[in-house]
C-alpha cells in the first residue's frame, strides 16, 4: 500500500519535471559534453572534427589575444561590478531616507535600465560621439577638450564602464526592497545604544541586506564575464583590442574564424571560471553574509 503511494508520487514527480529534464539533457548536458569533446578537436564545420588532444589549450595559453580578452573582461568586471553595486546601494539608501518625491526618484533612476541591450548601445554610441555627442558637450562646459571615447584604446573600455552605471537602477530597486525589509526595531535599538550612522550601517543594516548583496555580486560577476552586446554593437572589440571581451573572442573564433574546437576550449574555461568564482564568493561570504535563523535559504 505504502509502496504504491511512493510510486504514484515518483511518477507524478517525473511527469511534472519532464520538460525540464528533457531540456536539461538535450540543451545543457549534451552541449556541455559536446563542447568538451570539441575542445579537444580541430573543427571547422566543413570538415569532420579531428582529435588533437590538448593542443587547443596549449595554443590558448600562448595566444596573446586570449590573454588580452581575459584582461579586458577582468578590467571591465572588476571596475564596473563593484562600482555599480556600491552606487546602487548608495542611492537606494539615499532614497530610503525621508526624502521628498521618493517615488519619482526611484522611477527616474530605474528608467534607463528599461532602455537596455542594443537600444542602450546605440544611444551610448551616439552620446559618446566624439564631436556631436552629449558627453563631450558636458565635458566642454568644464573646459575639457573633446575625447574620442570609443575610438581610443585608452578610453573605450572606460566609456563602456561609464555606460554600465546607467544600468544601476535594477540593483537599486533590489537594495531598496532589502533596506525596507530591515526591521525598524533593530534600527531603533541601535539608536538607543548610541550607535552612529556608520556603525548602524555596519552592524545592523548591512548584515540584514548582505544576502541580497551577495546574490547581486555573484550575478553581476557572472553577467559581466559574458559581456558581449557592447563589443558587438559599439566597438567590434576595438580599438586595438581594448574591448576584445572574452565572449566576443569566443564568438569571433567560432563564427568568424570557424575554429569551433578552439572556441569550445575557451567556452569550457569560462564555465570553469564561473564555477570557481561562484564557489569562492559563497565560501568567503560566510564572513559577512548574515542569514536570518542562521541558515541559508
Amino acid at each position, binding site marked *: 500500500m505504502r509502496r504504491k503511494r511512493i510510486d504514484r508520487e515518483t511518477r507524478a514527480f517525473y511527469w511534472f519535471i519532464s520538460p525540464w529534464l528533457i531540456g536539461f539533457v538535450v540543451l545543457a548536458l549534451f552541449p556541455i559534453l559536446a563542447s568538451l569533446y570539441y575542445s579537444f578537436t*580541430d573543427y571547422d564545420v566543413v570538415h569532420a572534427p579531428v582529435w588533437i588532444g590538448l593542443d587547443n589549450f596549449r595554443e590558448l595559453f600562448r595566444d596573446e589575444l586570449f590573454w588580452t580578452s581575459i584582461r579586458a573582461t577582468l578590467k571591465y568586471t572588476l571596475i564596473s561590478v563593484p562600482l555599480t553595486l556600491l552606487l546602487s546601494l548608495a542611492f537606494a539608501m539615499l532614497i530610503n531616507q525621508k526624502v521628498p518625491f521618493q517615488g519619482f526618484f526611484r522611477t527616474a533612476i530605474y528608467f534607463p535600465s528599461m532602455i537596455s541591450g542594443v537600444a542602450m548601445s546605440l544611444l551610448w554610441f551616439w552620446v559618446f560621439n566624439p564631436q556631436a555627442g552629449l558627453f563631450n558637450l558636458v565635458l566642454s562646459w568644464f573646459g575639457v577638450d573633446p575625447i574620442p571615447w570609443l*575610438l581610443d584604446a585608452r578610453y573605450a573600455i572606460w566609456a563602456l564602464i561609464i555606460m554600465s552605471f546607467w544600468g544601476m537602477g535594477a540593483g537599486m530597486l533590489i537594495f531598496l526592497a532589502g533596506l525596507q525589509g530591515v526591521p525598524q526595531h533593530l534600527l531603533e535599538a541601535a539608536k538607543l545604544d548610541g550607535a552612529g550612522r556608520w556603525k548602524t550601517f555596519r552592524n545592523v543594516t548591512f548584515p540584514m541586506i548582505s544576502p541580497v548583496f551577495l546574490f547581486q555580486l555573484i550575478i553581476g560577476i557572472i553577467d559581466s564575464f559574458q559581456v558581449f552586446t557592447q563589443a558587438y554593437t559599439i566597438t567590434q572589440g576595438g580599438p586595438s583590442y581594448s574591448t576584445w571581451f572574452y565572449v566576443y573572442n569566443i564568438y569571433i573564433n567560432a563564427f568568424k574564424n570557424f575554429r569551433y574546437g578552439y572556441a569550445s576550449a575557451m567556452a569550457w574555461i569560462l564555465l570553469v571560471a564561473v564555477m570557481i568564482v561562484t564557489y569562492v564568493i559563497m565560501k568567503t561570504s560566510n564572513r559577512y553574509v548574515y542569514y536570518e535563523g542562521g541558515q541559508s535559504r
Partner: protein
Amino acid sequence: MNKKWLTAATGFALVTVVAGTACSSGSGDGGSKTVTITHYTIDSPDRTFVEKLIPDFEAKHPNIKIKVTKAPYEQFDSKLQSAIAGKKAPDVTSHWGYGGFMEYYNKGMLMDLTQLLQDDGFSAGDYNIPENVMDIYKVDGKTYGIPLNSYVTVMLYNKDLFDKAGLTYPPTDYEDKSWTFDKMVDYAKKMTVHSNNLAEAQYGVDFGWGERDQRVQYFGADVYSEDTWTNGGKPSKVNLDQPAVIDAYKKIYGLIHDQKVAPTPAFSKSVSGQFGDPFLSGKIGMSVVGSWSLAASSEFNFKVGVAAVPQGPNPNVRSVLYVDPLFILKDSKHPKEALEWIKYLITTEVQEKSIELSGGNPPVNQKAAEKYYGSFEGIEPAQIKQVYDGAYKYGFESYNHLIDNYSQINELFINELGPVENGDKKPEEVLPTIQEKLTKLLERFRQSK
C-alpha cells in the same frame, strides 16, 4: 482557464508543426524533375537584385528553380559556414564577406569546374570575358570561379567642393603624369577646413586605397613576400620591418596627422558610423575608393566626378582590382544546373540589365561594360571608361581574394593600426608589433594545415 490552456496547446502544436516542416524541407530532394539552385548573396540592394532576374530565367529553364538566400555583410561568412554545417550549403555564391577566394579554396569549399566547363563547351570569349580575367580564379590550371563583376579603385570627387575652392577637376587619363600624389595633397589642402563643428569641418582627401596591408603597394612597397602570389596565398615572410614599408605607412597616416588633409577616424565615424563612407556626407573633397561607391551615386546630394587615381611612387600599380566571381560549392548536387544559372548571369543581355537593377554594378562582360560606362548621371561615359581602362592597366588583384585566412589578418591590421589612425602612435612604433604578431599568426596557419 481552459481557454488559456487551449491557446497554449495550439501554440505548442503550431511550433512543433513549423519545426516539422522546416526539418523536412531541409532534407527533401523532391522526386520531381525540377531542380532548385540556391544562390547565396549579401543582403543589400546591389546584390539582391538577382531576385528580379529569376522569373525570366525560370521561364527559359522550366526545370530549374532559383532560390536566393541572404545575409548582411558582417555575417556573410559565418552564415555560409553554418549553412555548410547544416548541410544546407548554397549551390552558387561568391566571396562577398571578409574572407576571400584563397580562404574558400584552401578550406576545400569550392568545386573544381574544369571538367564541367569542358563538358559544357564553355568559352569565356562567348561572354566577352578577357582571358586574363578568367585566369584570376584558376589554380594550377584548374578553374574554380567564373568572373561576374569587376570593380576597380577610382577617385571620386565632390565637384561642389572643387568649384568652391576654385580648383580644376582632376584628369581621368592615367597617362596624364602631371596628376600625382603630391598634387592631390596640394588640392586637398585647399579644400580642408578644420572645425569642431561637424557641419563646417571639411577634408580634402580620404585615401581608402585597398585594405590597410595592401595600401603600401601604391607606394612601391609590399607587406608580403613574393611567393605569396604563387603558393596559394601563404606568405613565407612579412616585410613590415623594412624601411620602404615603414615609409609608406608614414605617408599614408601623414595625410591625417602631418598634412592634416584627411579625415580622422573620429570625424569619419561621427558622420558615418562604424562602417559608413564619409564621402557621402559631402564633406570630403576627394575619395579614393572601390568603384562600388559609384553605385551609391544616386544617393549623393552633391555633384560627383570620377578621376584617375593619381600617379604615386609605384609606376606599375595604381588601382586595386576586385573581380568578383561566382563559385559552385563542392557539395552542390546540381552543378550542371548551377552552371546554367551562372552562364545566364554573364550573358551580355543580363549583364546589361543587371547594371540598372543593381544601381551600377560593373559587368565583367566587356560588351555590357559599354553600357555601364554610360549609366551614371552627370558623369561622361568616356570618362568612366577611361578611368576603368587605366585602372585595369595599372591594377593589382585585391589581397583579400589572394591571401589565405584573410579575415584574421585584416582584423589584426585594423586593431593594431588603430592607435596610428588616431594619432596616438607613430607607424614605426606599432609596425614591429604587427610584424611579430603576423609572423606568429602565419606560423599557426602553416601548422594547422
